[in-house]
């Protein structure tokens, strides 16, 4: 499937921003089963400095620095991506019980090595309740794929999808205690549950196909950037995506932007800026599927997206100056 993607993120600052530096992870990544045909990023006002590089995990990373005072910032990312993931034969995955040992003994040191996706990371503590919760449906005798999918389904069943119930800073433990949240929280809970049981798991940010194929239900999380989990199923099967928000395997409708150990590695917009007062944000996504690679990309999108609080981790430093 080919997708034309449009992502728009904007910030309206109450006061003027003097100086800002951002790191953006908004362009789709290239990975097995996903090919980026083209991508373009526009930032307004035009940054005084900008660079594009790839981070450790191979995610495209753009830096944008503005020195001139500005009171709003808009980003627009457009991309065409071809997604054709191999079908996962859940029956062919190794027994879950063997996975933890295989992961521990794996000697790969590359960016996709299991060693990076075990244990704690900034957003992932390994609280006992989450460990136990996950262990309850991780049957060591079952095939790893089926067992992990059952965890994703359990999270979907047990947790309420409630935008606004949590914020971008919520950790896995808090979301778990509340049993509600958004895709980011579900992904963190699932990652913590898997890692606490020795299974390598990572965080994927990305897009979800907006309009479901005929006869299928519309998935949650399609009107904004989405998040899901990637789990390691052994040296032969490699990494497979699981979407705990929807209780499904990540398929051709999941378009990956960035992969990391948790949200902190993939935050779409990270910034340090100096301003006073609050800011308003918008965040809109449009994902248009088609089968024809020769189709020109649309110039403007009639976006169907709604507004939602942005999930940027911008940090503001007010420049109040006192005695």
């Amino acid at each position, binding site marked *: 499937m080919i997708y034309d993607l449009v992502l728009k993120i904007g910030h309206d600052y109450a006061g003027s921003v003097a100086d800002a530096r951002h790191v953006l992870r908004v362009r789709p990544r290239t990975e097995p089963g996903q090919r980026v045909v083209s991508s373009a990023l526009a930032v307004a006002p035009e940054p005084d400095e900008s660079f594009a590089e790839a981070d450790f995990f191979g995610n495209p990373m753009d830096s944008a620095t503005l020195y001139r005072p500005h009171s709003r910032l808009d980003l627009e990312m457009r991309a065409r991506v071809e997604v054709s993931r191999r079908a996962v034969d859940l029956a062919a995955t190794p027994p879950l019980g063997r996975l933890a040992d295989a992961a521990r003994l794996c000697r790969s040191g590359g960016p996709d090595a299991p060693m990076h996706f075990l244990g704690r990371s900034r957003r*992932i503590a390994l609280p006992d309740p989450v460990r136990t919760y996950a262990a309850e449906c991780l049957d060591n005798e079952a095939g790893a794929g089926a067992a992990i999918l059952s965890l994703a389904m359990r999270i979907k069943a047990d947790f309420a999808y409630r935008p606004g119930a949590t914020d971008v800073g919520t*950790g896995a433990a808090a979301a778990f205690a509340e049993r509600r949240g958004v895709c980011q929280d579900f992904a963190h809970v699932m990652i913590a549950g898997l890692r606490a049981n020795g299974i390598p798991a990572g965080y994927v940010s990305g897009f979800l196909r907006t309009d479901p194929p005929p006869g299928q239900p519309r998935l949650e999380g399609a009107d904004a950037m989405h998040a899901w989990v990637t789990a390691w199923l052994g040296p032969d099967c490699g990494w497979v995506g699981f979407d705990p928000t929807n209780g499904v395997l990540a398929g051709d409708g999941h378009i990956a932007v960035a992969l990391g150990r948790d949200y902190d590695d993939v935050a779409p917009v990270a910034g340090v800026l*100096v301003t006073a007062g609050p800011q308003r944000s918008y965040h809109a996504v449009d994902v248009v599927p088609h089968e024809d690679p020769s189709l020109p990309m649309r110039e403007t999108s009639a976006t169907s997206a709604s507004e939602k609080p942005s999930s940027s981790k911008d940090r503001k430093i007010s420049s109040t100056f006192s005695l």
Partner: protein
Amino acid sequence: MTSESTALPSYASLVGVGRDEMIAPGGGVRPHYAPLLNALSTMPRSEREARFSSARQYLSEAGVFHQVYGSGDAAEQTHEWPLAQPPLVLDPAEWATLSEGLVQRAEFLERVIADLYGERRLVRDGVIPGALVGQNPEFLRPLSQQGLSGAPLIRFIAIDLGRGPDGRWWVLGDRTQAPSGAGFALENRVATSKAFPDISREMNVERLAPFFMRFRDTLYDLAGPDVTRIGLLTPGPHNETYYEHAYLARYLGLLLLEGGDLVVHHDRAEVRTVDGFRPIRVLWRRLDADFCDPLELFGGSRIGTPGFLRAVRSGALVTVNALGSGLLETAGLLAFQPALARATIGTELMLPTIATWWCGQEAARAYVTAHRERLQLAPAFPPAADAAAGLPAAEEITRLSARGFDELMRREGTAIVAQEVAALSTAPVFVAGRLEPRPVTLRVFLARDRDGWHVMPGGFARISDSRDARVVSLQRGGGSTDVWIPSDNPPRPVTLIGTGGTRFARRLPGAVPARAADNLYWLGRYAERCEVATRLLRLYGARTGEGWKAGELEMRIGGLLAELGVTVPPGDPVRGLLALARQAADTASRIRDRFSPDGWRTLREIVRLIVEAQDDDGTELVGLTSAILTHLSGFAGLVQENMYQFLGWRFMQSGRSLERAQMSARIAASLLSGEPPEGALEALLGFSDSSVTYRRRYFVDLSRETVVDLTVLDPLNPRSVAFQANALFEAVSALPGMDAGETPDMLFRRLARLRVRLQTAEAQEVAPAFLTRIGGDLADISDLFTRRYLLSSPRRGPGHEESE
């Protein structure tokens, strides 16, 4: 005369079965200790005490202290530096052998880190488990390739050692991120030399200065030929070793920088100075890596520089040590030493490491569980900036049932090591006047230059508080001593202070970082504000003390004091005064690298005076305020006479002049407003210390005009508003960007106008409205000044609204 030789048998009897640094197993004194012990034995106790006290006095005068973190909300406290005597003396032949082992270890560590930030063969070949890298908070992924270039990632490290019963030195741990203690070792040396100048000469104790000089040259070599300044990056004044950072910066001539002083433009790091941005290429880093860049590393860091990693990756900024070198501090790596050594340097390590088991492996866990009584658990990884969960406390672990321990091992084993409890050697230190053997550990320092690694001939010895402490740490009490390596040859006299190669010749201090200038400016203002309040309070105390009933004049003075946060009786004026004095002393302690220890000590002394007065019920205001004023004039004298009168001094002077002019105008306006009360004119003269001058200059009785003339308009009276406006103008005119011939800056124009206003005013027109207007002008000038020179960086720290 008490002789130590009679005390020696008692020392020998205190030495346990373990190894003692001074006493050989047979009870005899080891030869390398003999000269020191002989000297100590033959000197009278009074002389010994006098020598120790001169060392202590040096430390206290230099303001050497360290901070101990309070628990919870309690603020950190500063403590006197716990220097113990006598120094630890090491046998030169043994030291030479030890040094070889240390250099080998440094080379080994260098290879390990290069691989882990490069090809990671050590993981691929199974030499170490991937978990030690993959789950390590010090493995910085944004720099995962930095070892490939071949440039060394570590250049200044410390290694902690303890000596076992067999006389061998054992490695207890590696300090490769930003090791502390080298500056304290230097201070210990200077202080100890004050106590034993003759003995250290006689023993030809190896000097430390050449080691530091070579390291400084290394830093300049790294920066390239045209670089004038190297920075020392500090977490700031709240860090426990900030004193050391300031000391080393002063000693090596480095620019003491905080993350907020730096900005990254394109690929380059620059320093925000009062004269614009100045490039910086090399930083000696004392800030933990994860805090360096809130954009790509720990996002919660408030003390970093956004874009820092970008400058590092481009190669334009070099840090010593490289960010991420803390990876080598991973205790888990100690469990794999022989294999790591074979894989990297192809040979055995000369220095053994403390026996360590990494509990991430089944076999190790079984061993540790079986021997838990004689092992100590510790974190396998270096601490994370945002550590979510730590190990249970040691006493909790001790109480764990067999099942509970098993469970802990299984769940958290990856994050735990078990180590043998080191049996440390003992060294002699004086405790309550007599020598006692105390367990000792040794921190040694190594620096790398183009020729390879060099060991600092000496180090930092930590002495335990109790005879059988398992862990020797300053944070938990205990002391430290100097470390002497005697030699057969007299050392060449060399010191960093005052040498200065051609590189330093005729170079003005140059651009002051905006933050330092800001602190200097406010130090000037706060010191002056403290003086104004003290003068007002003295005036108030003198009048009420003489039995006057508080009348209109006293009420006005009380109102002025209240504006400064000082409440007159029945309130507690001492409390307000203390707050003002602390403000000045705290500001001074933030710029200790640019400020004489004497000036800083004077301000601390004022704080101490007031604190004592507070504890004392019968404080008499006049006495206290006079004592404070004496100290403040001492401070002013030091600033005037001893401070290098360049940029930094001008900022301080500007703050002082501005504050004094503003306060003088405010006080005159208040005392002269409406119908001036009885005694207002005398009070104004008294406040500005101008009574004597007045009698000399005007042969008339007090009149409003003449008093105003002297205290506001007279350009020769240093207490007048006009004098201070002129002084401010002079100081500002000499600041960068105020060059004659250029379009005058707004700040310059406002100042010039103010001067003219004061120069041309008639005494009759100096009414409260005029004075209030002058005060307003000065407030505007302060704002312009701040915007022009000090506000190039956002003020961080308290007083900031922050939101996510």
